[in-house]
C-alpha cells in the first residue's frame, strides 16, 4: 500500500517536472524560432556558443543543478560576445568573423569551463568541510566521555556497556 502511494507520488512528481520542461522547451523553441527569423546572426553566435550546454544536455547526467549552472555560466560567457556582435553591426559576416576569433571562443567556452570546474570542486570542498566538522565533533564527544569516566569511575563504563548491549 505504502509502496503504491510512493510510486504514485513519484509518478506525479515526474509528470509535473516533464510538464515544466515541456513548457520551457516550448518557450525556448518559440524564442529560437523568433530569433532565427528576426536576429539570425545573433542566433548563429548563440547556438555556436551554447554547444557545451547542448553537449551537457545530451549527456543527460540527471543533475539538473549542474545543467542549469552550465547553461547560466555558458550564457554569461556568450552575452558579452553577442554585445560585441551588435556593436560591430549585427551581420553574418561579423558573426562569422567573431566565430573565427579564438578569444571569442575562449570567452564563450570559458564560462562553460568555469561551470564544469565549479560543479566538480564545490562539492569536494563542502565534503571536506563536513568531514572536518564531523571529526571535531567526534573528538569533542570522546573528550566528554573520558571526562565522564574519570568522574564516575569503572562502574560507569560497565553500566554504559550494559546499556549499549540492551539497546542492541
Amino acid at each position, binding site marked *: 500500500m505504502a509502496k503504491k502511494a510512493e510510486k504514485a507520488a513519484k509518478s506525479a512528481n515526474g509528470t509535473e517536472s516533464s510538464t515544466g520542461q515541456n513548457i520551457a522547451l516550448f518557450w525556448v523553441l518559440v524564442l529560437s524560432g523568433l530569433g532565427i527569423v528576426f536576429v539570425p546572426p545573433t542566433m548563429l553566435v548563440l547556438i555556436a556558443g551554447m554547444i557545451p550546454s547542448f553537449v551537457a544536455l545530451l549527456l543527460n547526467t540527471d543533475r539538473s543543478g549542474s545543467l542549469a549552472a552550465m547553461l547560466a555560466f555558458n550564457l*554569461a560567457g556568450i552575452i558579452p560576445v553577442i554585445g560585441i556582435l551588435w556593436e560591430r553591426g549585427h551581420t553574418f559576416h561579423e558573426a562569422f568573423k567573431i566565430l573565427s576569433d579564438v578569444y571569442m571562443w575562449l570567452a564563450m567556452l570559458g564560462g562553460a569551463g568555469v561551470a564544469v570546474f565549479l560543479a566538480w570542486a564545490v562539492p569536494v570542498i563542502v565534503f571536506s568541510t563536513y568531514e572536518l566538522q564531523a571529526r571535531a565533533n567526534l573528538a569533542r564527544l570522546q573528550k566528554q566521555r573520558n571526562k565522564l569516566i574519570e568522574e564516575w569511575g569503572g562502574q*560507569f563504563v560497565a553500566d554504559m556497556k550494559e546499556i549499549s548491549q540492551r539497546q542492541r
Partner: protein
Amino acid sequence: MTVAEKIEMPTKSPTGDAGPLLGGRFRIDVSRRLVDMENGDNMVVQATDVQNPSAEYFAVISNPYSSFRLAMAQIMSEIHIPGMVDLMAHGKVQFSEIEACYVSVFEMPRGGRLYREGDAPLPEILVLDLVVSTVATCLLNLQKNGMTHRGIRADNLFVADNSQSEFLLGEAITMAPGSAQPAVYEPLECVMAHPMGRGDGSPSDDIYATGVLILHLVGGKLPAADLSPDEIYTKKLELGSFAALTEGMSLSTRVSDVLAGTLHDDPKRRWDAETLLHWREAIGDTPRRGRGDRHAFGKILFQSEEYSAPRVLAHAMTRKSKAALELIENGKLAKWVKSALRDEDAATKIEQIQASANSSRGDKRFDTAAVAQAVRLLDPDGIFWYRNVAFGRGALGPLLLWAFQNDDAEMKKDLMELLETALLQTVSVEETRSSKGRQLEWVPESALTRCYDYMRRKRDVGYGLERCLYELNPKTPCLSPLVLGSHVRNVPEFIEIAEKKLAASNGQGNPFDRHSAAFITSKAKGLDKYLRMLAASAPGTSANALAQIKLFAKLQAAAHPGPLPGFCRWMEETQKPVLAKIRSRLRREVVSQKFQEAKKSGNLAAILKETDIERQLAEDTHEYEIALATSAESERIAAYLEGASEQRRQDAAHYGIWITSVLAITTLVTSMTISALYFLG
C-alpha cells in the same frame, strides 16, 4: 567455649595494693580470692571496711549473666535479718576505666562453714536447737518482708563466730533463686525445673529446704545423692518426700516429726516458719507425713504402663510428648480425668484441647502446646513444661539468661518457639482468672505480650529473643560483646563504655550487634523509626549503615551530649559503604573532606548534618543517571558520525550544486548587467 567463659573477671586492683571502693567505704580486694565461698559463676573476694579495718567482709563479684535479686537486696540493705549474713552494701564497682562489675559486700561469718560434704553428721541436738531456730528465725523475718531465701542448704550455713554458738544462713541474692540448690532440696512443685528456672517460689519451699537440710546434717550426707533429679522426683511422687528421703535411715522420733512437718508434699499442710520455730510444741500433735502424689480412682494406660497418679502421668507425658498427644486426641485422658480424678473442670478443658488438637493435626507447635496445656491441667501446681524446657512461672527471665550464657541453641530454640506462640499468655490468663494469688507467681502478662510482639519481628535487629531477654530481665547489664564486663545498665553508660572501647580500637568494633540493639531499644524510647529503617535494609548495606549512624546520633543527642571521637571513628568505618555508593569521585572527595572537618566536633548529628549524606546520595544517583544518558547520547552521535560519511558526501554534493547554481545565476545576472551597461549605456 561459652560466652561466660569469655568474660574476664577482674584479677587485679587498678591502683596496686588498694582495691576499688564500693560506696566509698568497702574496699574490694580482688587479689584475695575466697574460692571456698564461691557458688556458680560469681567470684568471691575479701573486702575491708575503710572506716573499720578490723571488720571482715566478703564481696561477691557478680557475673554479668547472674540474676541478681535486687528487690531482696534493697530490703536487706535497709533491715537486719537475724540468722542471715548481713548485706553491707551493693552496687557497681569500677575496677578499671572500662572494667566494672556488680559487687555485693556481706559480713564475713568468722567461723566458716558449719558443714562440708564428707564431714561427720552433726549432733541432732545442735541441728534441732541451733540450726533450726536460726533458720526459722531468718525465714520468719524474710516472710514478714515478703521474701523467700531459696538458698537453704548445708554448704550455705555458716558459723557466725569462733565460739560456734551462733549460726548464719549464707546469702542468696547474687544468683537466681534456688539455682544453687541440689535437686533434692526442692519440693515437688519445682524439683523438675531447670536450676535457673526455679523461681522465687514461696516460703513453704524454704521450709521444705530446711527439712532436707536437717536430714542432710543429721544424716551426714546429701539425701538421695546417688539419684538423678528425675529419679528423685519420681520417688518423691510415688512414696512421698518424707519416705523417699528417709528411706533406710534411722531417725529419732523428734527428727522424724520435724521432717514430717517440713517435708510434707502439700505446701498448704507443710509447716510454716512460725511452727518451725516452735517445733517442740508442734510435734505434740504428731505431724502427718506427705504421701506424694494423689491417687485416682482408676488407672490409665500410657506407653504400656498403668498410671493412677496425675503428676506421675504428667511427668511421663513430658517425656513422651508424641504418645501424650495421642492420649489427648483419642479422648482417653479427658475420660480418665473425669471418671478417675473426678475433676470435671479439668476434663472439660482437656476435651477442648482434644477438639483443637484434632482440628489442627500436623502442626508441631500446636501439638506441643496441647501437651503442655494438658500436663499443666494434670499438675496445676507444678512447673511449666514446653519441649525441653521446664521452669517456674516467674522464672523465665533467669532461664533465658542461662540459655544465652551457655549459648544453648536447643533451649533458645524452644524458648523462642514458646514466646512466639501465645501459649504463655493463654495459660497465665487462665490461671490468674481462676486464682488471683497466682498472678504474683507469673511473669506480668504485659511483659509476655510484649515478648510475643518482639518475637513476631524476631529477624529484625532490636527484636527477637535478645529483646525478650532484656524485657524479662530489666536489671541485667548489656551483654553485647563490646561492653561485656563493664556492667552497662543504661544507654548513657553504654555510650560511655562503647566510646572508650571504640576509641581504643580506632573505631573497630560493632556497637550495634543484636544484644546492644535489644538493650538500647529496651532502655530508650523513640527509636522505632530507626528500627524500621534497619529492618528494611540488609546488614552491610549503605542504608543499614546510615540507619545505625542516625540511631547513635539520636542517642548521643539524648543521652551523651559530649563529643564522641571513638564513635566518629566507628562512623567513618561504617560510612565506608555509604561513601562507596557515591559514584562521583569529586562528590566523594568533597563529602570525605566535609566529614573530616565535622569529625573534629565529635558530634554524630553534626557530621550527618554537615555531610548531608542522604541528599548527596540522591543527587549523585540523579546525576549518575544524567551522565549515563549523556554518555549514551554521545555514543549514539559518535556512531552516527562515524557511519555517516556517505551521507555527508551526498549532502556535500547537493550543497555544492546549490552553491554552483547560485554562483552561476549570479554570474549570469552580472554578465547581463555589465554587458547592458557597457553596450547600451
